[in-house]
């Protein structure tokens, strides 16, 4: 089923665009929060932002494309006897492949800014794979609901706009008031952002507690998404 990704290969021609977009965002956020609202406690502010933007961009793209994966491929759902689960999951994986360029950009900048490679880099793939697992779970839920209620994709878009502010992308997690920290940490994307910063900027391993948290939330979400999808796919044929 992995050959599904062939399908998406032609769409990822815009390598330049996928790098340019985070660079522009990084520039804008650096100017706004580095110059207009100065935040002097953070060194290498642009890279700090990019550590947040890359995992965030991946999640945004993966969740959005997975949400519409079924309604965009009615033909496959209604006419081909292939496992339908593959559609949202393939969208998430395709987003992961596209984001690889942004990851390369991030790592290059980290090295250019003199942060060097450290042993903890081996943790990075784990973090990102767990984020991918989480995105698959979310995508399975939202794509199947989107078949029943076509407004779902717009709800997903709005939720993402809101959550951009609730993930510590342009601010450090340490300024979040203590009583909200628990809720913040439930969000796997937050965990991935912070873990990425721990590794790349502070050269230390992400705390064990947040890794456990990340593993549990991602796997539970995947199982939940799988359950929802299997239940809901019985009526896909009629509704698409």
């Amino acid at each position, binding site marked *: 089923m992995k050959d*599904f990704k062939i399908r998406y290969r032609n769409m990822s021609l815009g390598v330049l665009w996928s790098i340019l977009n985070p660079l522009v965002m990084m520039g804008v956020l650096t100017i706004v929060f580095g110059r207009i609202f100065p935040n002097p406690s953070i060194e290498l502010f642009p890279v700090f932002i990019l550590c947040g933007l890359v995992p965030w961009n991946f999640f945004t793209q993966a969740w959005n494309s997975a949400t519409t994966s079924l309604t965009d491929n009615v*033909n*496959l759902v*209604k006419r081909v*006897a*292939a496992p339908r689960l593959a559609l949202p999951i393939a969208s998430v994986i395709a987003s992961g492949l596209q984001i690889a360029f942004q990851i390369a950009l991030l790592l290059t900048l980290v090295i250019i800014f003199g942060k060097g490679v450290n042993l903890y880099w081996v943790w990075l793939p784990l973090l990102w794979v767990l984020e991918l697992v989480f995105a698959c779970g979310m995508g399975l839920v939202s794509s199947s609901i989107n078949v029943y209620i076509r407004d779902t994709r717009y709800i997903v878009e709005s939720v993402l706009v809101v959550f951009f502010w609730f993930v510590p992308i342009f601010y450090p997690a340490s300024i979040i008031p203590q009583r909200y920290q628990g809720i913040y940490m439930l969000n796997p994307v937050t965990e991935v952002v912070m873990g990425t910063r721990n590794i790349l900027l502070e050269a230390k391993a992400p705390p064990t507690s947040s890794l456990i948290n990340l593993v549990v939330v991602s796997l539970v979400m995947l199982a939940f998404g799988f359950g929802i999808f299997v239940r809901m796919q019985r009526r*896909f044929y*009629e509704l698409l």
Partner: protein
Amino acid sequence: MRFTDRPERAASSSEAFIEFCDVSKIFFRQSERVLLGRYVKALFQHQPRDRFYALKKVCFRINHGENVAIVGPNGSGKSTLLSLAIGLTPPDEGTVTASGRIAGLLELGSGFHQDLTGRENVFLNASLLGFTRRGTEEMLESVIEFADIGDFIDERLRTYSSGMTMRLAFSVAVNLSPDFLIVDEVLSVGDTAFQQKCFRKIDEMKRNGKTLLCVSHSPAMVRRLCERTLWLDHGELIMDGNTEDVLRTYEGEMLERTKTP
């Protein structure tokens, strides 16, 4: 559904069958229901949903080595029946049982991507049907040879005519060597030469104990390919039997209907 080892394939074809037992399929007539506003509205005012039977208590069994056609006017449930046989949707009542490998060709170009070349599409399509990459490479030559579309195999699919798309799709489907080939009115797009080639291929498959289940509006094609015919009308199985008998009655009835509007 992994089709890699041959012995299993041989075993499954000897007992392959499709059985419909009292199968009904219900469709609802409200298409806008998939919008959020509809759900909100339904919360406040209860509307009975208009439903109709796309299939009603349909019963039949198709054994291997039997070529079967389905005839009937538009909207009589033919395609729905094929979708149920392929397993795209479950029945609302009754049971559908199928064993053996099924290759379905329901609509031209489904499972194909317009931006990929013909060759890439063969891989895509085969992987959708559960073939491994290696298995596809092995059969690639025979697919291309059978489709016989020349250099177009390396062109993007959007440059194809519908006949060429059909050639490629059909060629992939038959080269998967399925126990059941399920075809929905696709063959009529091909030119006479290719149709003859398809007929010969289907004959050959039949000799190997394979089965064709097709929908067709062409009596000539049905007579040529199938010895058994099912006649569907308004979701009900009107007649099931020898092609010649069924077609004679069916054509008589249709003629009757055109006379008295």
